[in-house]
């Protein structure tokens, strides 16, 4: 159920995340507003996952502040996150979605119908009674998406959901994401795939070694990168 108050814009104000001696995120200033999907782009280890966890509220920054619609104490009611390797509860596919619905406060009487709708939306209706852990990797991602969408999130954070999927499965997931974006959900998605940027992105946040190197619209980023690192990344060179 969508909260009355909006979680947007999502702001990171001079945020650093330091674990032990390692600086994972370094003075990140970022504001994400409503609109087309934001893709967090960057090489492995650049801090994408940590950034998403901060945006979800699963971790607290070592310095700086994260705020949602101007509030720093927002609960996760109107946000959802899809982890790179989502945890499938040891139940049927349908029960996983129903669990998400229950947590989001969906009344018991509506759950069966909503579950069916959501499973249909991700193309898993035929597998509703299959144990979730027996589904293929792509099917698990779609199920996790259905479970995340069950929360009717205002912001949906996705951590490289297609990283280990084949092209067919990737397309399936991207279509679901695109549909969610069309229906008004703000998508914030980590990726290291330029093709995905072309297909989905409205804007790009380019992250290298914990720093936001570039924050631009997708077309600007792809056609006129303003930093050498971004230019190298777009060219397909290795960025370290």
């Amino acid at each position, binding site marked *: 159920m969508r909260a009355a108050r909006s979680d947007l814009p999502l702001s990171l104000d001079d945020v650093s995340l330091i674990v032990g001696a390692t600086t994972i995120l370094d003075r990140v200033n970022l504001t994400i507003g409503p609109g087309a999907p934001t893709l967090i782009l960057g090489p492995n280890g650049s801090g994408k996952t940590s950034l998403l*966890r901060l945006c*979800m509220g*699963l971790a607290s920054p070592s310095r700086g502040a994260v705020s949602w619609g101007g509030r720093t104490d927002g*609960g*996760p*009611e109107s946000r*959802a*996150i899809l*982890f790179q390797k*989502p*945890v*499938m*509860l*040891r*139940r*049927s596919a349908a*029960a996983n979605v129903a*669990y*998400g619905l229950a*947590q*989001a406060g969906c009344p018991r009487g509506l759950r069966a119908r909503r579950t069916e709708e959501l499973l249909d939306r991700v193309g898993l209706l035929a597998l509703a*009674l*299959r*144990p*979730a*852990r*027996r589904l293929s990797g792509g099917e698990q991602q779609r199920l996790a998406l259905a479970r995340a969408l069950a*929360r009717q999130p205002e912001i949906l954070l996705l951590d490289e959901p297609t990283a280990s999927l084949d092209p067919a499965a990737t397309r399936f997931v991207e279509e679901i994401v695109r549909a969610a974006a069309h229906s008004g959900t703000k998508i914030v998605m980590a990726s290291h795939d330029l093709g995905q940027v072309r297909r989905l992105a409205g804007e790009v946040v380019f992250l290298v070694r914990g720093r936001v190197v570039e924050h631009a619209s997708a077309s600007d980023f792809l056609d006129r990168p303003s930093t050498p690192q971004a230019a190298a990344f777009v060219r397909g060179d290795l960025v370290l």
Partner: protein
Amino acid sequence: MSETVSAWQLIASGDATLFAIVRLSLAVSLTAVAIAMVVGLPLGAILALTRFPGRSAVVVILNGFMGLPPVVVGLTVYLLLSRSGPLGELGLLFTPTAMVIAQALLVLPIIAALTRQTVEDLWHEYREELTAMGVGPTGQVATLLWDSRFSLVTALLAGFGRAAAEVGTVMIVGGNIDGFTRTMTTAIALETSKGNLPLAMGLGLILIVLILLINATAWGVRAWSEQRAG
């Protein structure tokens, strides 16, 4: 039970005394496990999810108590329930209820400790996902217990095995009263002391078969439901 009677003849003849003993054994041990389960599952799960000073000590003590000597538990419950003890007014000594209490105490640490371990392992896996879904503490406990259910069956069986097989506590707090608190194990002890070793052995085999049957049933149920729920 006359000179020539063997355990197999007792079964074949549908001996009422034998069946009453079997029924009491099962009733006492299953009730004890049920009570220990109702307390032990949430207790183990809460211990798995919470962090507080001295938690390690509690975990070590709980694990250690899995090996509680039945005689000591029996004696403790005896002293508590005795007419001269603090709970004497209840008049529970030498009743099946006393046996249930003693066995529940014996089994509780086993169920709680194994639950704690199982749930804690699963918690490492589920933590982020549940937190992201905004699941509260009660919901976390319930979810983790439910999703550990197949492993927890083993914990319950371990508890049941311990309860059904032990003689120390039920002898002390039950008194081995014929037709009232005599269980399989105390009957075996009695027949042994009568020097009636073949009958004692026969009863022992019946007990083993019963325990195997219950384990096989649990295994079957687990395999079947695992097939369905993964």
